[in-house]
């Protein structure tokens, strides 16, 4: 064990309005398994993407086996020996396992012909060597692979010639217990081979079992570098949590008696038996890991995704919502998480984007005048302090925070009884964040019911009257504001809560 195989020196990365990672220094020794843990947005993915060359880093440097690979491209990082096993591997459906493993790097014969025998031999050898022999056939087509088999393909891609460090991103999310055990065996073998291993997972018990060291990230800053044998899960969680809201926001007590949304025994592709209520003037926060099904729940309620069974009552009346237009007719508004892909028409004006959901309400006999569109949304553009030189400017030319405010203006103009906000302050600058919080508070005071999906712990704790945590297709009992602590929420979200 001489010099470390991977050394990260003072690495930092910023995005508009967020410092995703700063001042991270750490090493991985040969034959060492280092786990990275942290909440959503703590900087784990950013780190992996920097190492894999997907992101350029802003500060610091990365040394692989003593050689600097900063400002790497994905290809350069790969050649230098860093390999990432992605959570959702890209598998080409119509080519074989062997070809999928060698894609982009087919062994050649003279005249540019692919050397199929060599490729098959290499893959067979690798399958045997890493204990996957018999689990997947080298001639199987990509489309026929199970999630676990896809994972094997992705792992073998990573382990081809010249590998020095392998990073696993949530490797067990699609694996059964048995398969997870097999993965552990593989990782231990890689350790014996003298590779550096990075293991990123939300599942703390796995981290405790497999890793030698644990690095804890919070808001892009390392808060702990612990030897696994000398620590426990509760200690790790305590290092992950404890963030403060930038502007300590205090909400007024506004919950009224009237129940606006009542969901009973809802089932869908993503959910088992979900029941909850949101009352007028109440903000209910939905916590959980990315991928726990919160966004899907919002889309099921909004009619974008299909509900299999269960009832949804709006204002006490059972309501059939089969499409977003049904939802809007039932006085529901929905500001999606990914505003560029799902929220906004980037090539159209601020007025059009803000008034889209009320076109039919504003029109007489289908005629829609510019003047009416403007007077319907101008008050909200002003109230939200949307900074735009003109109402006719294309929304794509506004900054992120102002774009988000345009989405909010749309739903203010529609004046719904229930407003669903999915990650309302994602990629929004600090000033705009505070304004969005103020607005949410004001809307609640006026009696709007708000369902807020958020991965920002401080935001959940400060803004929610009650918090519901989603984990593994179901939801927790609501946690009242006074009882809500970050530890309690994280424990439920990670599935480590003692029931």
């Amino acid at each position, binding site marked *: 064990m001489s010099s470390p195989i991977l050394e990260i020196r003072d690495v930092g990365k910023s995005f508009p309005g967020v410092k995703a990672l700063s001042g991270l220094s750490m090493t991985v020794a040969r034959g060492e398994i280092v786990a990275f843990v942290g909440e959503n947005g703590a900087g784990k993915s950013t780190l992996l993407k920097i190492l894999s060359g997907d992101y350029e880093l802003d500060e610091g440097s990365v040394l692989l086996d003593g050689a600097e690979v900063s400002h790497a491209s994905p290809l350069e990082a790969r050649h230098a020996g860093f390999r990432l096993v992605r959570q959702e591997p890209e598998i080409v459906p119509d080519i074989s396992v062997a070809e999928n493993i060698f894609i982009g790097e087919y062994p050649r014969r003279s005249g540019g012909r692919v050397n199929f025998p060599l490729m098959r031999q290499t893959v067979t050898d690798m399958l045997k060597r890493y204990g996957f022999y018999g689990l997947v056939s080298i001639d199987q087509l990509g489309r026929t692979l199970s999630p676990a088999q896809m994972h094997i393909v992705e792992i073998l891609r990573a382990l081809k010639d010249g590998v020095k460090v392998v990073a696993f991103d949530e490797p067990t999310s699609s694996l059964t217990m048995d398969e997870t055990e097999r993965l552990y065996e593989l990782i231990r073998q890689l350790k014996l081979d003298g590779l550096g291993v990075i293991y990123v997972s939300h599942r703390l018990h796995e981290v405790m079992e497999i890793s030698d060291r644990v690095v804890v990230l919070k808001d892009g800053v390392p808060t702990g570098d612990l030897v696994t044998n000398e620590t426990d899960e509760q200690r790790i969680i305590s290092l992950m949590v404890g963030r403060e809201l930038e502007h300590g926001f205090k909400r007024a007590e506004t919950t009224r008696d009237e129940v606006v949304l009542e969901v009973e025994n809802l089932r869908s592709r993503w959910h088992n038996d979900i029941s909850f209520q949101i009352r007028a003037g109440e903000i209910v926060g939905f916590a959980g890991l990315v991928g726990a099904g919160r966004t899907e729940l919002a889309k099921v309620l909004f009619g974008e995704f299909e509900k299999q069974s269960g009832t949804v009552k709006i204002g006490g009346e059972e309501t059939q919502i089969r499409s977003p237009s049904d939802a809007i*007719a039932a006085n529901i508004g929905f500001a999606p998480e990914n505003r560029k*892909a*799902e*929220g906004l028409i980037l090539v159209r004006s601020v007025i059009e984007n803000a008034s889209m959901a009320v076109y*039919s309400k504003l029109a007489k006999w289908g*005629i829609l005048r510019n003047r009416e569109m403007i007077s319907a949304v101008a*008050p909200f553009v002003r*109230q939200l302090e949307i*900074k735009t030189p003109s109402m006719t400017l294309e929304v794509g030319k506004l900054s*992120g925070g102002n774009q988000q405010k345009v989405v909010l203006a749309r739903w203010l103009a529609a004046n719904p009884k229930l407003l669903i906000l999915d990650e309302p302050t994602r990629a929004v600058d600090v000033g705009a964040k505070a304004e969005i919080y103020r607005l949410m508070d004001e809307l609640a005071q006026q009696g709007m019911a708000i369902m807020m999906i958020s991965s920002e712990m401080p935001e959940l704790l400060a803004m929610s009257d009650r918090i519901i945590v989603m984990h593994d297709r179901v939801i927790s009992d609501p946690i009242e504001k006074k009882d809500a602590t970050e530890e309690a929420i994280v424990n439920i979200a990670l599935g480590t809560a003692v029931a």
Partner: protein
Amino acid sequence: MTTTANDQHSANTESIGKRMMHAIGAENLSLIIALVLMVALIATQTEFFFSARNLFNIAQNMAVVGLIAVGMTLVIVSAGLDISVGSIAGCASVVCALVVVSTGSVLGGIAMSLCVGLVLGAVNATIISILRVNPVVATLATFSAFRGVAFLIAPGGRPIGVLDPTFAQLGSGRLFRVGEFPGIPIAFVILVVVAIAAHLVMRSTVFGRSIYSMGGNPVAARLAGINLTRMRFYIYAISGALSGLAGAIVTARTSSGQPASGTQGLELEAITAVFLGGALLAGGKGTIVGSMLAVLLLATLSNGMNLLGIPTFYQLVAKGLLLVLAVAIGQWRMARSERVQARLTATGGQ
């Protein structure tokens, strides 16, 4: 919420010059300049160009492509494409001739061409929306199929002669023909009426506004309550109906129901015009005014090349180049606005 009464936008106080500019659209200015330059160039080469007869010839020639380009504007703004328009016009032309010949009713013939277009457009929408076939592939398929249908319904696959003088007015009739003044072509008047109506629909109706929304981002449009399937039905049906009307005009002008001749290549001209008029391939952008200016530009170009004796083959090459140029300009505009956005995001500016 504090809503004040004087929330009227400053639009009311804009100067007349600005308002005119707004009506034409700044993005159409380059089209007008190109048109003026081209006219100047042609006029120096041939005196005949500026004669009233020639100008009204251009107007008459515009009508068929123009009507199709109106529908095509709706389709392209909604992020679709309709390659089958020429074939729809062919079907409509044949049906129109059959109806006029057999019943003697001119109005019946025109109404039937509209209906044929409407139905075939709805067939396109069904293939795209219900069978989920990409619009380019779907209408490429019906481009072939509808042309085949046109030949099948024409007895023996041959043109059907129509010798009704009233009906011929639709093709070559003139309004206000006095003395030396050759009169305004009726077909051109129809185009102007249709284009103005379409312009108003696109600008000031829920339907028109929703076309821009769905073209710019179908997911966001759906999440804002727009029914994309229904919209597509209307859009392709309108495109079909206008193609049908264009087919009727072709029938009247050639005095025969034509399965192919006169309606072939219309899709290329209409699509070129719409892109040249400022529409984006990705959808969400484009105006009737722009498309009509581009149709005028193309008709003038074609007329000029004929007057100057440039052979048809060169004209075909020129049309192809124009389509590439039109889309390339659109892509360049998009790239430029993306750079602006990237710069804004990078600086976190407003």
